[in-house]
């Protein structure tokens, strides 16, 4: 009830603070947020933090189990797994955020234009989305990576291109419903240019769904990057991402279980936290679903 009351009050600020209040009460989402902030922070300062060079080989040492010198143990070539996991963190987060930004850029623009102009523009643009939806996208990404080189740019393009479709649909829906709101109609009637209305009035109000979907896109993209790396199509050695570490670990886990255990645990934990965070944001920003839980 109090949530509903808060929303009938002044728009915007109180809505946001009500959402924040609801979010804070969600313990799983809140601890996920802190865990992620910690992970991202560690990933950023990892060059100063890593105990060893991630690519420094110590063939004499070989694969050694976790010890005081090497907390996560070392891999077959004697490289420190903790340092490699930290490098992997940078790459996984970078890919996750960058590809999500690509998806965000294309998807929001596409969806906002389609939803705002409606009519034939909309049906044409959405038909394109429909057709692209029907494509086995990851197969194209695999082809892209194999044939055009395993570069970062290709990872961003490939994974970002997969994720913008849903974003476009969501933004289009929100824009279409906001288009009929009084304050937007008023702005249109007084001759404010479309671009200004979209940027000033419409998109800020679409922020909730966009934020939620973006939060849920990051783990998806990170998982897809790991998937590509697992197939040997992601970053190339001696660089490492969590996916490539898991791939190495998976082939050797019988003899050296820690090689699989640590990267797998870190990746799963991160994805888990991102999913909890996304769910929490959705519940906080959309009181309808919250009332049910």
């Amino acid at each position, binding site marked *: 009830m*109090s*949530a509903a009351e808060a929303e009938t009050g002044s728009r915007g600020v109180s809505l946001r603070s009500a959402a924040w209040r609801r979010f804070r009460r969600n313990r799983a989402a809140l601890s996920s947020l802190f865990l992620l902030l910690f992970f991202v922070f560690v990933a950023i300062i990892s060059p100063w933090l890593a105990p060893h060079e991630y690519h420094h080989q110590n063939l004499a040492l070989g694969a050694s189990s976790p010890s005081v010198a090497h907390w996560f143990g070392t891999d077959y070539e004697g490289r420190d797994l903790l340092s490699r996991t930290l490098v992997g963190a940078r790459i996984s987060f970078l890919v996750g955020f960058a590809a999500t930004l690509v998806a965000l850029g294309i998807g929001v623009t596409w969806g906002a234009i389609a939803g705002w102009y409606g009519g034939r523009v909309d049906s044409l643009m959405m038909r394109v989305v429909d057709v692209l939806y029907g494509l086995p996208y990851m197969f194209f990404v695999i082809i892209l990576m194999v044939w055009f080189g395993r570069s970062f740019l290709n990872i961003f393009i490939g994974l970002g291109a997969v994720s913008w479709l849903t974003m476009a649909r969501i933004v289009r829906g929100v824009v279409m419903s906001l288009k009929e709101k009084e304050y937007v109609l008023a702005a249109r009637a007084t001759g404010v240019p479309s671009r200004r209305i979209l940027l000033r009035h419409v998109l800020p109000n679409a922020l909730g769904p966009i934020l939620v979907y973006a939060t849920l896109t990051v783990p998806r993209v990170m998982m897809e990057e790991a998937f590509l790396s697992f197939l040997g199509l992601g970053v190339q050695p001696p660089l490492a991402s969590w996916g490539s570490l898991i791939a190495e670990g998976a082939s050797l886990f019988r003899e050296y279980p820690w090689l699989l255990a640590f990267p797998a645990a870190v990746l799963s934990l991160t994805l888990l936290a991102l999913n909890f965070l996304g769910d929490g944001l959705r519940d906080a920003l959309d009181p309808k679903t*919250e009332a049910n839980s």
Partner: protein
Amino acid sequence: MSAADSRLLRFDDLALEFPGGDGPGRDGAPAAKVLNGVDLSLERGEILGLVGESGSGKTVAGLATLGLLDRRARFTRGRLEFRGENIIGQSPAQHRRRRGLDIAMVFQDPMTSLNPFLRIGTQIIEVLRRRGMSRPDAKLAGAQWLGKMGLPKPEAQMKSYPHEMSGGMRQRVLIAIALALEPELLIADEPTTALDVTTQAEILALFLRLRETMGTAIIFITHDLGAVAGLADRMAVMYGGRIVEEAPVETFFAAPAHPYSQGLMASRPPLEGPRPHRLKLVGGTPPDPRHLPAGCAFAARCIQATSDLSCEELVPPDRQFGAQHRVACFWEGPR
């Protein structure tokens, strides 16, 4: 004793509330006191008009009778008797046995009260099957009921889905479903609000015929005084979870005693000419059941309330006003 025998339903000082400190965002909120000592009774075969604004507790009273309230609902005092037996605190199974067989309810919105995924036939047959009817028999009886409600081509209608019907047709289907088990008591919760005027009149005529042919007692919940005028034997006005006035229809319409009832009468739509869809009944807003005033719940909106009458401090007790006419108000009236 004979009077007690003919009583089908009796609310005796029934009070219930929904706890406040439950669910996110409601920590420490006070309980919502939805019913605050309802006294009301209904005889067999009687039609009672229950009038009040939304939030006055009409629907909750109906749901309580069926045992369909949210699990959080807490009865704080009073009794609710059906055929002389207190049904408060009975098990869900006991309530369920009564539902449909003894008491049926028709809900407000015909557009959302039928299951859109199931055929009309399925939805009426499953009720008839509760009486142990065989499937073919139930199918036949179901079509008959639809026919009795004035639906054209009832056999064909059995196969259609709710979305293929108009609002009026759906409401007839809902009433047919409610009546198919020939319950002794029918609770109709604003059954005509969503319908156009012609259909409204037809549905009301249907209710009258029902009582004549089957002796069904009906509680007709509405906020539309006009609808009850031609239908009910008795009127009860509900406000803030209490019955504030109760009288035979003729008495009530001739001389309403409670200031709220008078307000309702005054704001009635004209008998002739175009009828507005919904009227703003009385100035002000209904009381918040979480923060009920200490005295009369209506005092803040009442044009008669004065400090002499201590309306703000005391809850006015029921007062006999004439034969079968009671009112819960300190004001003695213009007389």
